[in-house]
């Protein structure tokens, strides 16, 4: 059963440190999404890619966040420098086609102290 794989599952870091989260989408899926989940804001779309090209990253704070897909098997989300308000669960999801249902990873729980 194909799964979206995210690493690490948990990350605790100090304010100001760089954080890199990784996602391996399901093989053959050409859309990849990054979402952030918090109690206050729910699920926020940060960025999404189609065929490795970024289509929309308007939900992402540009000054500190960056998202890339170096190849079809890896998507990364970086925060530099991290801040306590970045504490959340970050989900990666992939889909085979635009507008198709998404398959979610287990998320990375980030805590910035």
């Amino acid at each position, binding site marked *: 059963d194909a799964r979206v794989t995210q690493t690490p599952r948990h990350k605790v870091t100090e304010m100001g440190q760089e954080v890199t989260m990784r996602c391996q989408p399901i093989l053959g899926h050409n859309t990849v999404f990054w979402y952030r989940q918090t109690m206050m804001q*729910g699920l926020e779309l940060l960025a999404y890619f*189609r065929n490795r090209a970024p289509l929309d990253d308007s939900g992402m704070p540009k000054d500190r966040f960056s998202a890339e897909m170096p190849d079809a098997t890896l998507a990364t989300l970086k925060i530099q420098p991290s801040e306590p308000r970045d504490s959340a669960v970050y*989900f990666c*999801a992939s889909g085979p086609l*635009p507008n198709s249902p*998404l398959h979610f990873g287990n998320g990375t729980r980030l805590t910035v102290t």
Partner: protein
Amino acid sequence: AQSVSQHNHHVILSEAASLELGCNYSYGGTVNLFWYVQYPGQHLQLLLKYFSGDPLVKGIKGFEAEFIKSKFSFNLRKPSVQWSDTAEYFCAVTARGSSASKIIFGSGTRLSIRP
């Protein structure tokens, strides 16, 4: 741009009660609609989807949802809930026919079932 509203933030029911969770979307064109479920400590999983055809769609675990175009709604229903349905439920929408469309989620409804 599309948006989704889920007005019920937290719903508490007893086992065997009937469930209806509201979902309204805002978009002028044709849409694909989804309901996802997130069990405690887990990732989101697809519950059901509507693309076209019969507006009453059935999903897994006895859930169903009805697309009412005139009301821009896609409410989730289940006739008799179980304790294992305790989870957070998310409605989502994407604009159909747009290759650049993104999937937007509602804020979620937390469902608590009393045994």
